[in-house]
């Protein structure tokens, strides 16, 4: 047969990050996709040898710039668990707020990029326009737009005042209104549906067995979300996962869109129940972490797992990070064959690939 071999990436305009897919194509139909990773591999897990466990917060935040809060949160929760540190309630609620803000910005980012992947440039622009508002909130409440560096072991670093909180509420109202205006296009437009419905189908069974996580898993009808475990303050906020059943790119799109709205709702609830008090437990004098733990949280892209092992020294023995994209790449490899070349960006982006997460 007449095979075309295409090096897709590492530098490729539809891929915001470098990953290489060797695509073998027949008349634009993909018959094989072999990934090549390692373009973003830094080896930061190994930095645990030379950075102490406090400094590692800043390192793990930079595993991925889009979900830095949640990386740090997962890491801190793990350390807190080993060290037996209790986090003040206000800090737990603030952690939820910042996590959800991050989820919104990540999902908005993704919705934009996804729109771009099927060539809907103006929609991309609109989502990113809305996203800037969230970036403003981040910047105002934490001091930085992207890598907010707000989690510490034992709590959070910033304590927004009531006026700031009110401002945040007003801002997310605006975001919600803007999003509702875009909902019709993103979920109902003929061309959008034509490009996403039935593309990259992952059945419930496949998604479960291939270890898909996050919206990919929930788009296939499995109601599993690490937030259900109730870490931080989620247990008190009556969290419900968003589930769609079709398992195609459209379903994932819908899951993410609905999750964005759900996150806005969660922020509102978290803010309404925000207790007063301290935001940071002093950990001076507690022995450095000794023991091992596994901590899981829900990133925008899915479930994130940290395996931490310490032996009572300032540096940890092992920091192992299993990021959601890492888990979603095998499903991607299963999804790609059989689609057309023009669907590659759509299917690839539908797992919301975060390569810097994957390779660390």
């Amino acid at each position, binding site marked *: 047969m007449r095979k*075309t071999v*295409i090096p897709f990436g590492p530098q490729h305009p*539809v891929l915001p990050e470098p990953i290489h897919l060797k695509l073998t194509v027949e008349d*634009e139909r993909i018959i094989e996709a072999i990934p090549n990773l390692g373009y973003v591999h830094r080896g930061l897990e190994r930095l645990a040898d030379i950075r102490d466990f406090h400094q590692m917060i800043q390192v793990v935040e930079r595993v991925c710039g889009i979900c830095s809060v949640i990386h740090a949160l997962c890491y801190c929760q793990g350390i807190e668990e080993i060290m037996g540190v209790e986090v003040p309630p206000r800090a737990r609620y603030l952690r939820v707020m910042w996590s959800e803000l991050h989820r919104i910005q990540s999902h908005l980012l993704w919705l934009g990029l996804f729109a*771009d*992947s099927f060539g809907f440039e103006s929609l991309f*622009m609109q989502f990113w*326009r809305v996203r800037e508002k969230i970036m403003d909130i981040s910047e105002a409440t934490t001091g930085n737009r992207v890598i907010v560096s707000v989690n510490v072991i034992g709590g959070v670093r910033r304590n927004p005042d009531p006026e700031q909180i009110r401002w945040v509420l007003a801002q997310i109202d605006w975001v919600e209104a803007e999003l509702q205006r875009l909902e019709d296009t993103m979920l109902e437009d003929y061309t959008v549906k034509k490009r996403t419905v039935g593309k990259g189908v992952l059945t419930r069974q496949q998604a479960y067995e291939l270890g898909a996580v996050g919206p990919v898993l929930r788009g296939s009808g499995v109601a599993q979300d690490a937030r259900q475990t109730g870490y931080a303050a989620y247990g008190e906020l009556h969290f419900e996962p968003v589930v769609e059943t079709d398992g195609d790119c459209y379903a994932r799109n819908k899951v993410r869109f609905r999750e964005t709205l759900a996150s806005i709702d969660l922020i509102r609830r978290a803010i309404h129940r925000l207790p007063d008090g301290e935001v940071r437990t002093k950990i001076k004098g507690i022995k450095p972490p000794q023991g091992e733990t596994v901590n899981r949280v829900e990133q925008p892209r899915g479930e994130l797992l940290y395996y931490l092992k310490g032996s009572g020294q300032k540096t940890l023995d092992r920091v192992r990070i299993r990021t959601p994209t890492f888990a979603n790449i095998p499903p991607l490899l299963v999804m790609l064959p059989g689609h057309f070349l*023009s669907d590659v960006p759509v299917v690839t982006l539908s797992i919301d690939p975060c390569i810097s997460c994957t390779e660390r």
Partner: protein
Amino acid sequence: MTETAVLILCGLIAGPVVGGLVSGLDRILTARMQSRIGPPLLQPFFDVVKLLAKEPLVVNVWQAFCAYCYIAAASIALVLFFLQSDLLLIFFVQAVGAVFLVVGALSSTSPYSQIGAHRELLQILSYEPLLVLVVVGFYLETGSFKLTDIYAWPHPMLLKLPFLFIVLGYALTIKLRKSPFDLSTCHHAHQELVKGLLTDYSGPFLALTEIGHWFEVVLMLGVCTLFWATSWIGMAVLLAVTYFLEVLVDNVTSRMNWRWMLSYVWGVGLTLSLVNLIWLHQG
């Protein structure tokens, strides 16, 4: 003789100037639709001059040849339009340019360029018959293929060829490389084919293809004017509305794939043109 020379000159100048301005307006309008400010009006000219002054890098020397052939054919087509020549002939000459562009892209081994070239061929396959049928529509209405006769026709053509105008709209959208038909190459970077057809053209050669594209755009808009050739105002309004709709469509649709394009454009386009042509034939 002088008149001919003036017309030739007009054609040669109108292409880059009008085409560039239209392209600049297009970019501003697009930006405004996306809630942005957008570039200055003269931005396309800056781009082209800059590209012309860049270091020539080539992947395959034949690309240079093809780029020149493309712009030559595109400009000849426009000049023929200004000389009020035969409409069918103009499209044939225009097709030469399109083919050379494709051949140039095929001469690179990059799969992106090659696939872009093939998609461009499929685009040609989609719009070429439609253009011929539009021309046939003019013939059936006016009894001539010559632009002199068509422009001299006393009634606005749009009233008799409304469906063919829509069909021309399809062709125009494909030619302008607008969504949903921006398959082979696209004005925006984020496309699975990188820049498709134009991936391996660079520097001055890219500038040539861009100028050639302007020639083609002006030519296509010129064909649009035929639909309301009786008054300047009608012509201007028709052009403005058409172009606005083109930009709008670009901004409210996503990019489709070529299978959809082929079936949609042929299906809808051929049906519409047949309906219109049969109407003309009977009426």
